[in-house]
């Protein structure tokens, strides 16, 4: 049986936070994102969908295969609000849906990776561990690499797709040292998902949701995990000292012609004529 662990993160949609809230939050160090819609981070979302596609293809290619031959675990480290995403994943066919309870410090990737490593020690080993390459809050780009080191597993990054060509092996499309490659490797493996166009997470049907409605979400505390499994103690010490808003403001001059033709003419005369003359 192939055991896959898919780690994901939900965060507020930071682009929906008003400019004034960033300024006040940076000054006080306190943010209230509770009124902002939560979403699965885009890299994690691609990873979750790619796993489902790989599972579908695996089952289709193996007539004798059944869902018992592939086991999917969805794991998130976050507050209770993350359970909405776990319920969606349960409906989509993830066999185990697990939440490590807490609000991880977005700038301490070492702690997040240590918690995941401890979970793997408790419930693994896994043939494949899939994570998003980075999340929008901390943007550390570290967790997959740390996890590969903590678990002593090989890793491929900037992954855009994968499939199982035969038991125990995985064909992975990824980018390394500036080259896009398709590489067939032995499992186990950690994958850090990169940009994957068209890999938005599918939406479960009402029937799938109904069938999964009784499924339990497992909740574990990080303290319990680390105590039980003696997870790797990160040596890094990183402290946040301060924050400042990024100022992208420009003139913002409103161009208002009486119609599209006049607006285009103003744009052309003011900003584009010089450019086109240089190009000629």
């Amino acid at each position, binding site marked *: 049986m192939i055991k896959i662990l898919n780690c994901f993160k939900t965060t507020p949609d*930071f*682009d929906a*936070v008003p*400019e004034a809230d960033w300024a006040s*939050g*940076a000054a006080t160090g306190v943010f209230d994102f509770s009124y902002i819609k939560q979403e699965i981070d885009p890299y994690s979302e691609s990873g979750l969908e790619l796993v489902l596609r790989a599972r579908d293809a695996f089952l289709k290619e193996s007539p004798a295969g059944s869902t018992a031959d592939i086991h999917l675990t969805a794991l998130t480290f976050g507050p209770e609000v993350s359970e909405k995403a776990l319920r969606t994943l349960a409906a989509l066919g993830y066999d185990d849906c697990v939440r490590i309870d807490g609000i991880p410090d977005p700038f301490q990737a070492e702690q997040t990776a240590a918690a995941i490593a401890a979970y793997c020690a408790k419930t693994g080993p896994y043939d494949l561990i899939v994570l998003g390459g980075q999340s*929008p*809050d*901390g*943007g*550390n*780009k*570290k967790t997959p*690499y*740390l996890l590969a*080191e903590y678990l002593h*597993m*090989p*890793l491929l990054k900037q992954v855009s797709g994968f499939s199982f060509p035969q038991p125990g092996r995985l064909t992975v499309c990824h980018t*390394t*040292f*500036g*080259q*896009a*490659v*398709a*590489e*067939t*490797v*032995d499992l186990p493996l950690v994958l850090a998902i990169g*940009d*994957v*166009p068209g890999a*938005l997470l599918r939406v479960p049907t009402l029937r799938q949701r109904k069938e999964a409605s009784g499924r339990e979400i497992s909740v574990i505390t990080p303290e319990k995990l680390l105590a039980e499994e003696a997870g790797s103690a990160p*040596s*890094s*010490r*990183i402290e*946040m000292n301060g*924050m*400042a808003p*990024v100022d*992208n*403001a*420009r003139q*913002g*001059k*409103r*161009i208002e012609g009486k119609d*599209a*033709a006049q*607006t*285009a*003419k103003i744009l*052309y005369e*003011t*900003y*584009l004529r010089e*450019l086109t003359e240089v*190009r000629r």
Partner: protein
Amino acid sequence: MNRFFSIILFAGSPRFEHDRRVISAFLKKSGLAPTGGVVFVLDGPPRMESALDILEKEILSDLVLFAPGADSEELAVRLAVRKGGTSMTDVLSVSAEPAQESCDEQDNTGAVLVDRAIYNGHLTGTFTLENGPFFLALDRSLPEAGSGTTAHTFGLMPQKTMEYLPSEEDPLHGSDRQVLPPPEDTGLADASFILAGGRGIGSPAGAKRFLELADKLGAAAGGTRPAVMNGWLPLDRLIGVSGSLVHPQVCLVCGASGSAAFMAGIAQSRTIIAVNTDEKAPLAKQADAFVCGDWAAVLEELAGLL
């Protein structure tokens, strides 16, 4: 800042010269004297595990700087674990921790302060890193030094070139690897006029029209993350922190709200023009000129003028 440091470069990278220029400018900005540095250049067909093994043995300095990019980030983070130090990616600046500056000049192993973008590029965070050695991968948006400055800076640093050594112990050694054909050049890197489409281009049909209009206008076409992730535009046309960082004379943005990650990608444009039906979109204040209206109608008219 008084530090002994190492620089890691990849000889086969098409960005090798660019990376040298970025690092040169970064050293100057950070006050790191080139005489305190040594350059390690990895050469040959690259393998990550081999690079990790080589650098784990070779690097002895307390501060290690990596050129921008995903391979550097992986090396920085994994080496920090192996060497018991601390890593950070997308580093914008580094300086000595103030308390450390006043200490004995011979002691150059203390904490450092590092700036980097956080919260999807909405804020810049300043962090204290306490446990060395420090492995820092630089940010892609950092500026380049001139070629003369770069040659002078690197001329002062000893350089050691090392070849990747395939190892039987590498778990990925012997994998079946096929190099995929590179994507066609989108022209975004050197374009003087760029058309960037956002969520407002709305559909595959909208994207087709957008690309036709870009062609008529003689502009290179790119897109925001929503336009690319919805599959409307190809991945190689992504503009933003994880795509192309562009620097055209004019960037005309159609139907995009102006997310921080996208704005970082067009920040070096001389002029930004935005067309959007939502006058409250953040981009309205982040552009030089803003048109509240239908992008397609405006572009059709512009095509007749250019």
